[in-house]
């Protein structure tokens, strides 16, 4: 049990982070905050991937004479891509938020619902 705890605590922390992010997305009414939540959610997934790639005693995967153990470069590559995807999504989401504010005068989910029903 202890061993399990020690060897996996990293993943568990990541899961907690994911859940906080996910919670902000689904349970918060402010549109900007939802985007922040989405960011946290995604970033924690990134942390998870990078954790998968970590090798005990390894170094950064830049080949140097005399070093044998490197961490796994593949997750790094994947996450580089994913980060870019994340910022792209964020930018688009924020642009939408700005337009929503202009069109509705609010960025709170509950108010938007009300205003949509009015028309």
């Amino acid at each position: 049990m202890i061993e399990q705890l020690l060897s996996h605590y990293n993943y568990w922390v990541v899961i907690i982070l994911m859940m906080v992010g996910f919670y902000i997305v689904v349970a918060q009414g402010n549109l900007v905050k939802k985007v922040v939540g989405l960011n946290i959610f995604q970033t924690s997934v990134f942390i998870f991937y990078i954790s998968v790639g970590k090798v005990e005693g390894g170094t950064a995967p830049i080949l140097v004479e005399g070093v044998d153990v490197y961490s796994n470069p593949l997750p790094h590559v994947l996450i580089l891509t994913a980060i870019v995807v994340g910022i792209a999504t964020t930018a688009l989401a924020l642009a939408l938020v700005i337009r929503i504010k202009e069109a509705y005068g609010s960025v709170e989910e509950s108010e938007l619902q009300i205003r949509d029903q009015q028309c």
Partner: protein
Amino acid sequence: MLAHLPILQVILPFLAAPICLILRKPKLAWLFALIVSAAALAVSGLLLQQVYAGGVISYELGGWAPPWGIEYRIDLLNAYVLLVVSSLATIVLLGAHTSVQKEIEAHKQTWFYSLYLLCFAGLLGIVATGDAFNVFVFLEISSLSTYALIALGRDRRALWAAYQYLIMGTIGATFILIGIGFLYMMTGTLNMNDLAMRIDAVESTTTVLAAFGFIVVGTSLKLALFPLHLWLPNAYTYAPSMVTAFIAATATKVAVYVLIRFLFTIFGESYSFGRHPLAEILIPLAIIGLLSASTVSISQPLIKRMLAYSSVAQIGYIVLGIGMGSALGLTASLLHVFNHAMMKGGLFLALAAVTYRMGGSEIGHMRGLARTMPLTFWAFVLGGLSLIGVPLTVGFVSKWYLILAAIELGWWPIVIVVLVGSLLAVLYVGRVVETGWFGEPEKPGRNEAPPSLLIPLWILIAANFYFGIDTRLTIGVAENAAAWLMGGGSGL
């Protein structure tokens, strides 16, 4: 060049998108986009033929052998879906210029075509690739462009719809990403084929189970399976007409493809259905979605929204077939992927024509349509018949197979559900047709849509009947692909 077909399929619209942006003039951009999509369509036709002739095609991107590099892997299943996507994209684009001119501000039109091509390329990329992570990347290309396209709608609710879709879509994509990460963790590979082989050794682990859960939920979000469909009605309703026609016909179909690919190719039929109560989860959801969405659509005053709910219902049929876990059920699903693309594409194009002339697609705009816009009206009627599943239409073919599959399993309640679903379709289609037929138009006199809208519309309507009669292509491919996915057959 034949050897490069798989990559050409994706790269043609992919690289055409930035070129479109450089062209600047909307008309020029449209023409260019159209030519490129037609080329992509030709490529997909050739690809299907090649797969038929020579079996699975593998293309190593960058010359790196899989699993180290990214592989494009075209088999019967994705060649078929590629054909669906590229034909619908091309036909919709054919009519886009006229509609876009009216619905989208002048300085945004070039961007529209560029985004359209990106979305198109993204969808093709998802389908063509044999690499799990690459799926995620192209999924995001298509998703981001879809959000932007939806937000181009005139109504302010388009923005809100796009935002909701963005949030839900990103959650779905992130779920898929988590699933892929778990799979990578357990197998060390991202290549689908490789995954399929290596997954057997670790299939009893809970990690693979969690990966399975995340991927199924993530794709279900994307394909709008009840109750994860909440983003769809608004998105379809407020997007510009052409965007609705395009995404309704293709985007959810591609998500269905991803689900099928993961369930059957990667996890394998025995894992997905043998080990887990997947059928017991998918089928009730499909049924509830099918019945509730059909019922809701009956009372929608906005016809676009009505058809959007109908799409949710039709997704129910597709998932029902997948959930059966039998070759015949899968055949029915694959058939319906193709068939539903044609009917919904046609119906939404008809609405685009109505919107073009009448300025909207509410039930009031449909009044007296039989007299003011007879060609559009009859196209809608025929498309509606296909949706209901009247014989000689594609809708009938899919329904036939779905019922056959249910009878084969002895699932009589499912038979009833499918039939009741068609009956509900009679109601919601009938309501519009009745208004169009009997209603008094506000402005009497002919006011038919321009040919540029009618031509693509009637191409799709004709296809509804052509493929409802000559079913060699669709059924042939669907049956073979299904047999192959179920572990038999040769993939031909």
